């Protein structure tokens, strides 16, 4: 707890809180403050609506856009023969007329 840095609250710049407490702080602060847009990549990122597009494009937590996942991995090195798991349905091993078969919905 002692070595974490401080962060500034997006709702009020005069609020400086340890980074580990930021989430707790945001829960409190968002109630008394006008709604800010919440970043989909990191919920501690909040900004006003008009800046949302800008943040969306520059967010440091934004996953690196991978056009073709396989192509990217092929660049790094070969991959093994990875198969997709075969789907298995409950009716294959437990028919619906079995007394043990139970559905709640």
């Amino acid at each position: 707890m002692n070595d974490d840095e401080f962060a500034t609250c997006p709702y009020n710049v005069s609020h400086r809180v340890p980074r580990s407490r930021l989430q707790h702080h945001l829960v409190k602060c968002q109630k008394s403050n006008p709604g800010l847009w919440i970043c989909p990549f990191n919920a501690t990122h909040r900004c006003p609506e008009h800046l949302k597009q800008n943040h969306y494009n520059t967010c440091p937590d934004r996953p690196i856009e991978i056009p073709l996942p396989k192509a990217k991995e092929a660049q790094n090195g070969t991959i093994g023969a990875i198969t997709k798991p075969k789907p298995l349905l409950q009716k294959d091993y437990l028919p619906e007329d079995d007394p043990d078969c139970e559905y709640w919905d």
Partner: protein
Amino acid sequence: MLTQKVNKAGEMADPMRGRGRGLALLQALKKTQMVSSDEATSESSPDASATPSMAPSAIGTVSPSLLGTSSASVPPSVCSSSTSGATSIGGRGKMAAMLLAKAQQKPGGPVTFTPAGDGSPAALPQMKGAGRGLKLLQSLQASKAAGDSQSPKPDVQQITEKMAETSVSATFKPPGDEPKRKLYREVKDTPPVTRKGTSGTPVQVTANYIYLNFEENSVYEYEVRYDPDQDYRNLRFKLLAEHRQYFKEKTFDGTTLYLPHRLPEEAHNLVSTNPFDNSKVRINIVFRRTRKLSEMIHIYNVIFKCIMKDLQLVRINRDHFNDKAGIQIPQHKLEVWPGYVTAVDEYEGGLMLTLDSTHKVLRTQSVLSFIKETVQAEGAGWKKAIAERLVGCSVMTMYNKKMFRVDSIDDTQSPKSTFEKMVDGKPVQISFIDYYKNNYGIQIKDWDQPLLISRDSKRMPGQEKPTDFMICLIPELCQLTGLTDDQRSNFRLMKDVATYTKITPNQRHAAFKKYIETVMSNETAKSRLAGWGLSIAPETIQLTARTLQPETLYFGNNVKIPGKPNADWNGEVTRHHVMQAMDIMKWVILYTDRDKQVAHDFLETVKRSCRPMGINVADPQMVRLPNDRTDSYVINLKKVITSNIQIVVVICPSARDDRYGAIKKICCADNPVPSQVINARTLMNQNKIRAITQKILLQMNCKLGGTLWNINIPFKSAMVIGIDSHHDATRKKQSVCAFVASFNQSMTHWYSRVVFQSKGQEIVDNLKDCLVESLKHYLNVNGCLPERIIIYRDGVGDGELKILQQYEIPQMKICLSVLGGEYKPALTYIVVQKRINTRIFMKAGGGYENPNPGTVVDHGVTRRDWYDFLIVSQKVNQGTVTPTHYVVIHDSSDMTPDQCQRITYKLCHLYFNWPGTVRVPAPCQYAHKLAYLVGNSIHSQPASSLADKLFFL
């Protein structure tokens, strides 16, 4: 730790942080900073830049402070003889603070020390809970009131919402004339949340909960003022204690005094004598208000802490141990202390005391003899060896039973070294030898031993950078605690320790009885309880639990295994075909020259065992490595991974973290392929090789995407999610949060994601992304989105439940709306807690036994204000079983509590690495395993092509 020490001295819980050495130092620092900046301004020199550099410099200049100079042991003269500007600091940081001040002292510039302020800086505590917080609560209450009037029908969602609103200590503004004064209500007026299941066989059980009976008494709250004002907290206690005859029972925190009776008129103005300088101090005790005892649960906890002291138990952290009943294990130089954990709270059944027995394993060896042993064994390299073995260990000082963590070993100092100490207001050089002789009557025998350094850092209010200070420890007076890794891997030792620490339900229950009896027969404890109008029940609580129906298992070839009460299918799993076999046609075994025979044996056993399980295994490509160096594994792995290899098996001669990490990094991130690492030693035992190989084969089948067994899942379209975090033990690396979601109806295939976030953080910021990805995957596979989502969240403490409810659940909801306006699945969010103090015992014959797997307790000892239940899902062969606590913090589905409990227990059957039930639902266990693997070995995002398989098993 220090806070506790001070608490103990004052027999009081104190809400204020920062006392003693830390605060002393910090305040001194602050003051010197202020002084220097004052100087800067008054001289109008641009020297202000000196201020920011102050804090970092403090880290370097803090000199040997002293161990054991608790604020209580500061010589009286230090406090009393201090004149207005001079030092009067309590606590261990005193020396350091003074040295620091000296170092920063400029000629001509006066250095002012602030007193340690053990009392209370008048302004600070007043601010507590004012402003925002209060407003928040008010708005909450308003909304609650509004919500109540609108909807009288309490459905599940409302209950969860209500839970968010009721707060543990709701603060509200009295509508009167005193806006500043707040009333704390610790007992709620809302009815307890009771959500019970119905199915299963009733069983009579007891739990480690004891009813507390109280006569509704008034508690009188007084404010104690001193004239002249006393800042030193211990002195405030001492001064008040002079008039002991007026307060038979009291709770005092330095300012506020709680009494079970009204104070006589003559006691409102008292005069005490300062024992340090014999000056007179007037004490003015002002009556504030009367409160009900039942309003103040924290008083109960304080009372029980005092009772522990009455029973002469030693307090270590939060637990209390009996050092006189220690059990020696001489063959391993160990000692086991029995102890108790207590907590008082209001549960569904009423006010109860939770009692659990615990143990502390200590090493009887002193650190000095450990050092000497190491020196003998290692010779010249002893310094490095000792640092390796000692740094990070916690040691206990024998004279005052305090725990410290060793951060470094200083061989430039010895007990002959001196440090500065205030005697009669003047700094005096004193050696450690003299200090211990004078203060503790301890004669240090070895005068040439190095000193242990324990570092601690505290953040001072209003300052962002924490300040470090150091504590010197004498190895001769320190005892090692806990077990080393060497000791942990010693099977005989662990077995011997376990006979004392893993106690049976009968022994544990006997320990509770003994505690109750001791409390009842101890005169001081009895009168303490009676003084507050309390009494404890003679027996633990009696409850009726339910044991759920054992679950039927389905294997391949239409084999159906009826459920057994012990929920174990170790025998069946290798005899029957797996549900969904993945044939292993192209695979590689890597092994070193030394393990040639082991690799050969393994392959032979695989070939013999694969048939009964229904898995076809072709001959592998055998790759022999020239040596066991990590890089030769890396080079050869890179070579053998080709696009048609299904799985790589790596046989390692020993368990080494770095090698394992390197292998897993290649196979999970760089060149993704399912991989299996085997420690050659496990295969060397000829009697066990068959059983072990069978388990490995099953594991490999899972890693390839197969299914081992199935159960009946009563939902047609549901997704269950497990979330768990892994924190690096040294807190140096980022925390890893794993997210595992099912994507088929029978909940045997799992899609996994990993999120990195700042160190030590539990609550997840990037949930949305994970949920969207797993829902997309579900959609791809099934062609539709799940109608219900059940989330099991591990690793959240009680204090964070509400934050979770307000932080993670909104993230989830936003994410669902992103997927399309029409899509509104039923969302259930369940927090899983496995490290709890609750124990459940089943009555059997004349004694107690562990309850069978599937035993559910959902009333009596559950939380008062949450929809929660306890399930014992695992079978333990040794010791007492710990139930798992489930708190439903959000539920917008139509699931009844019974269904919720049953699906939770069903999910405990689906962890494929264990042929039986596990203590948490399978998604949680998988998430835990994945987070651990990534946090300990891979340290980077696993390849997305593996995400739909259990590659992390």
